[in-house]
């Protein structure tokens, strides 16, 4: 009843009696009392404030809490202004008295203009000010209760004992949670407070406290790096925060020690420098500094003692990696480098089970290092023996191309120093390639070769059964030692088998993703490479390799991610070069699977693939270019074998579903299950799920299998069965490469029916006709026909073609802008002494 006596509209009745105020306060306080009964479990932000769980500060409507002089507590809508101006009751009383006197004097001295005598029957025009109703500014505040009688009231500040603002409540709860160690929840409260008023008094201090407490807490756990970061953040804001310097020193010290022990010197050093900046006279920092310097010195001493120039250089590098400030270290490193110029290479693939004999890019790359080809190409320089990097000193073709006389160079010793490469080695290698049981077997060569005759120590005659287009192409591989295994390994004196080679380098060590190749002596090849050592470091993706190139860990990488090509070009001191041959991406199909023999299914699988979207969204992360574009057949676009009138392969998921359904019916309504194998390559791994999704949507059950790239390609080349396989290989001259492009096991032993893998018999016939073609006028129309008919026959599912790129640092000179493989003409390359920027 009493509360109804104080509506806001009765502004003029503002002379609230203290007693009535007390009554009102008591009544409201009674309404705010929590309900009786067992208290529910407290929510963060609720329990400590005596609020019901539903009134959690994070979720509740903002409110302020007013405590009246009698101890009753009111929950009201947030007051304005916030915070209220300060209020002193004594000063207020004096001010009120002065104001009243001033008001009375004004009334007396200023009568109304119309006079102050009224007439009968008229209402008084004079309005006497009611001095009791007047309030001074700030003496009363308007409040709106949030509980009980939801009305607005005027409240004299004299009756208020205290006001707790909502922001303060949030900060109080955050502090409580910080004490309890619940930093995430505390952060939420601080966020809410910041959202209401970023400059609220105490917010910054509480946030700092949160950073400090959480940082310290995390330092002792597994997330010490994050803890350190929080403390660093705090330090940048408030370097003088109590206890921060000590905590940082302790934390940094622990981290530096751990990194030092883990030999992550660069990270440890970075922390050390940071600590020194944060705490200039920190004793721990001094100790750590001495620790680094001592270790660097120790390694440097080992470098000085090392007899092997390569090992010496490695030690110097290591020493400078530990402590770049080592006195005189840089100069001595450069001196050591000039003794053993070393090239660090980042690669992303390694040869498969067939090693250097495999058909993979890695095998080709490494083969160029450790082996010399019999013929280094099909150009005139190669066939006339002018190319110094090949074994052949000359090649004579007679009997309309059915007889080849090959003369070998002198002084091309095997890497074990046993003897030079002789005719017997070449003859044995070529004969092995015609033996079906040999791992070197090449079916086309076996069919072509009639006999080999060793004429002299360095001369052989090869007779062919028929005329063939450019039979020299079969001599482009390396020769293997006749006394060795088909894998090129020779039994050593200690009984072990060790591969030997005749190339400019030899493998001297291989472990944990690092392969070390050392240049052969000058006497061996006649021209000793200027780079004494090649260190190949294996990275799991081309992006990682690029990061290593950017850091300066390596000077050359074999692949630049296509989507980051421009980024790579923009890196200071880095050059980007292309590979000559485009890379063709396609899905190989095994026709030995009866389901894939069905043209209907093959068409369904093809129509399910949105090639353009995959290429542009995943591979290029941008629009197609003239070099990287969607394929319409087995051959590269623009190649002489690419038929110009072939329509692009369509994308029609609905038609794909229909065709797959038709194929399923043809197979007796059994689900079509296919295994999809794809290489472990970052780009392919991104594309594969989309392909699987497309085929699954079309109605095919796909089992995915990720395989190491080299291993997969070698296994496929051996003719083993598969269903679907993602292949990305560089394209060679289509006359010789058409078969292997379409069928991975095209040259495999006939014992496993590799030709049956070609899903289209028509394309197989054309390929075999091409194989028998003896001249370009016969071969070229066949190639065009293969390209044209492949669109309908679909022996493979063409995807797209891309241009591959490599990149190197400026201090490496020699790599051409365009090359066939990574190490092309490596013997002429040079490298200057150089250290990664981190050691500068």
């Amino acid at each position, binding site marked *: 009843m009493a509360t109804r006596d104080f509506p806001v509209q009765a502004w003029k009745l503002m002379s609230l009696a203290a007693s009535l105020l007390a009554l009102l306060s008591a009544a409201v306080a009674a309404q705010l009392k929590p309900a009786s009964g067992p208290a529910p479990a407290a929510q963060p932000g609720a329990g400590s404030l005596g609020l019901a769980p539903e009134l959690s500060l994070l979720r509740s409507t903002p409110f302020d809490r007013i405590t009246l002089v009698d101890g009753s507590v009111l929950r009201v809508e947030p007051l304005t202004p916030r915070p209220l101006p300060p209020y002193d009751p004594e000063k207020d009383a004096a001010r009120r008295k002065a104001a009243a006197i001033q008001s009375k004097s004004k009334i007396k001295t200023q009568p109304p203009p119309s006079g102050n005598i009224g007439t009968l029957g008229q209402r008084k025009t004079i309005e006497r000010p009611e001095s009791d109703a007047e309030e001074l500014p700030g003496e009363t505040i308007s409040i709106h209760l949030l509980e009980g009688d939801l009305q607005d009231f005027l409240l004299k500040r004299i009756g208020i004992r205290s006001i707790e603002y909502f922001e303060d409540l949030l900060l109080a709860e955050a502090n409580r949670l910080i004490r309890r160690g619940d930093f995430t929840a505390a952060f939420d409260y601080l966020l809410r407070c910041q959202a209401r008023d970023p400059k609220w008094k105490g917010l910054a201090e509480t946030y700092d406290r949160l950073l400090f407490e959480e940082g310290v807490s995390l330092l002792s756990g597994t997330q010490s790096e994050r803890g350190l970061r929080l403390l660093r953040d705090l330090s940048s804001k408030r370097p003088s925060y109590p206890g921060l310097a000590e905590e940082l020193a302790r934390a940094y010290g622990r981290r530096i020690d751990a990194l030092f022990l883990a030999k992550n010197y660069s990270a440890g050093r970075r922390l050390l420098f940071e600590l020194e900046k944060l705490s200039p006279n920190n004793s721990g920092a001094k100790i750590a500094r001495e620790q680094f310097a001592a270790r660097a010195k120790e390694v440097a001493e080992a470098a000085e003692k090392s007899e092997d120039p390569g090992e010496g250089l490695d030690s110097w590098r290591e020493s400078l990696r530990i402590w770049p400030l080592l006195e005189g270290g840089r100069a001595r490193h450069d001196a050591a480098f000039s003794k053993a110029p070393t090239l660090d290479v980042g690669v992303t693939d390694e040869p498969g089970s067939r090693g250097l004999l495999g058909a993979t890019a890695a095998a080709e790359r490494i083969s160029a290092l450790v082996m010399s080809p019999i013929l280094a190409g099909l150009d005139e320089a190669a066939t006339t023996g002018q190319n110094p990097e090949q074994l052949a000193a000359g090649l004579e073709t007679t009997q309309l191309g059915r007889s080849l006389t090959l003369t070998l160079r002198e002084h091309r010793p095997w890497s074990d120093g046993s003897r030079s490469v002789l005719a017997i080695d070449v003859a044995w290698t070529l004969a092995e390639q015609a033996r079906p049981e040999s791992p070197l077997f090449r079916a086309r060569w076996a069919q072509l070769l009639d006999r080999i005759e060793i004429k002299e120590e360095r001369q052989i005659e090869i007779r062919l059964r028929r005329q063939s287009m450019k039979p020299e192409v079969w001599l482009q591989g390396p020769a293997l030692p006749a006394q060795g295994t088909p894998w090129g390994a020779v039994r050593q004196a200690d009984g072990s088998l060790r591969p030997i080679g005749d190339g400019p380098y030899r493998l001297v060590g291989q472990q944990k993703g690092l392969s070390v190749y050392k240049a052969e002596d000058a006497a061996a090849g006649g021209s000793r490479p200027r780079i004494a050592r090649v260190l190949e470091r294996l990275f799991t993706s081309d992006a990682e390799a690029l990061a290593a190139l950017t850091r300066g860990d390596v000077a050359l990488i074999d692949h630049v991610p296509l989507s980051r090509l421009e980024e790579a070009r923009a890196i200071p001191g880095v050059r980007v070069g292309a590979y000559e041959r485009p890379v063709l991406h396609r899905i190989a199909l095994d026709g030995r699977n009866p389901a894939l023999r069905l043209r209907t299914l093959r*068409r369904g699988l093809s129509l399910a693939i949105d090639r353009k979207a995959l290429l542009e969204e995943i591979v290029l992360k941008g629009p197609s270019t003239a070099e990287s574009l969607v394929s319409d057949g087995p051959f590269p676009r623009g190649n002489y074998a690419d038929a110009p009138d072939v329509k692009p392969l369509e994308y*029609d998921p*609905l038609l794909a579903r229909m065709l797959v359904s038709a194929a399923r019916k043809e197979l007796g309504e059994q689900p079509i299950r296919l295994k999809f194998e794809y290489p472990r390559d970052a780009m392919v791994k991104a594309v594969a799920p989309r392909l699987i999704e497309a085929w699954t949507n079309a109605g095919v059950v796909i089992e995915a299998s990720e395989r190491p790239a080299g291993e997969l390609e070698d296994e496929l080349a051996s003719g083993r069965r598969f269903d679907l396989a993602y292949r990305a290989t560089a394209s060679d001259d289509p006359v010789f490469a058409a078969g292997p492009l379409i069928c991975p096991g095209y040259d495999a032993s006939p014992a496993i029916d590799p*030709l049956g893998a070609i899903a289209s018999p028509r394309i197989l*016939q054309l*390929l*075999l006709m091409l*194989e028998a073609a003896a001249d370009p006028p016969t071969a070229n129309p066949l190639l065009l026909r293969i390209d044209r*008919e492949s669109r309908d026959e679909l022996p493979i599912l063409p995807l797209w073609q891309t241009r591959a790129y490599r990149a190197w640092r400026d201090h490496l000179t020699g790599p051409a802008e365009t090359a066939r493989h990574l190490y092309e003409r490596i013997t002429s390359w040079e490298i200057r002494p150089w250290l990664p920027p981190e050691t500068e």
Partner: protein
Amino acid sequence: MVAARDRMTLTLLLLLSLSPAPTSLVASQQQPPTPTTPPTSTTPTPTSEPAASSASEAVAFERKPYAIRCWLKIDPAARVDARRRGEWIAAWRSLARRTVGAPWKLEVQPDEGPLAGVKRIEELALETLAQPALGADQAWLLQVSPNNDSSILQLSARNYDVDTGRLGPVVSRRAAYAADMPREWMSLGLEVFQPSARVVESGAGGVTLSVQAAALAPASPLGQVVKVGSVFRPSRIFQKPDGSTLQVAEIRWTYLVVESLNGPLARCQIVSSYSDPLSRRVARRSRLVAQGVKPVESPTRLRFLAANDRSPLAGYSLEAQRLDGGSPFPLGLTDREGGIVVPVRFSEGLVRLRLLAGEIESLAEFPVMPGETADQRTLLVDPKPLAVEMLTKLEALDDELLDLIARRSRYEAILKARIEADKWDEVEPWLKAVQDLPGKAVYQGRVKQLRDEATRRQAESKAVVMTRAVLAKLQDLDSMVERYLDDEAIKAYATDLAARKATTNKKAPTPVAPNPGSATAS
């Protein structure tokens, strides 16, 4: 499979009319003689002996038991002494008497005869057999040797037919126990034994054979010389004026399958690649004989060469079909040399094989008895490159047409649903989508263009282009275009839409481009 069968039949018919290559499986005697004759009967000789020689001679032949001369070679490594050898031979002869009886007259030679000095029976030379086998009807050569990997003894045998001078394939068995040896020899003998017959009559789509010893009652059904289903391989023996043999010519790719027995006479169906394999139009004096043939557990080796330039037909598929019908089943692809090795026991009896180009055009069809010979047999075949190329084009057009029909059906179904739901606002875009697809006239033109091209190329090249398969495919395409690309319904919808527009006189809402991807959802 039906299409394949049709293709095969078509090919057969075409071959009958056009090609001198192997064509027909079941030759009919009523067919007019064609220039096509078996490749071995190239030397013109006087006609063969009369169909029915003197009755007494025929009876004598049918009642004459087979004089079988056997030579046995036991490898010393088998550790079989003379006594054991004698016991085995005696037991074997006893078994032969009890199971076969009168039809066989076994004569086991004490020495190794032609086997002397021969390491493996496969290496046996034909010329070493004629003289020792003189006077006998057949010579059997048996070898016993220890198995490489166990104590089991390996038995191998070959048959030499004195009349035709043909050496049969190697037949092998294994004897796990020494006591089983006579029984295994008996089984081997039954496998090796090849009945001989003379052609006594031909006509009415078959021939009648007089089978040697067929009139003699066997001791058990096992000893029956000829049965319904037995297969014979005919040969022509050219004779000198004195009646002695001048030359024996195998009639290739021809078999005689016994359909019925009439006493010692067997009525046979001719299964051949040739239209008239047993032609009487032979210049020299000759007689027709036949020799029994059975499937043997050894791979069948074939090689196909192009008839024009002898180049290997690589990458062609070979399929087989049983004589009594059934679905054809694939056997494999020819390798780079045009060869194919058909695995052991791919069939239990005579089958017809078919060589296909691109699995679409049948190039050759011929009967084969599995494992009949260990040697590779070479066939010359017309690869019909132009016809195959044309068929490939037609297949591509067929795919394109099917895709179009599928799309068109989808659009039409949606269109129909919109009209039935009276959603005329949505009809127009879908109608336009259907009308934008290539129509009947386009595909009629393309089919005609291909037909004209095939005709022109055939005329220019004088090579077969318009094969039965090509013709059938062209006809299929015509039917598909005519049946599925009919525009009548679409025209009717368009007329309805126009009429509705005129009557309602309302401005049609902006057409929404149809999204084929959402077609199923809608």
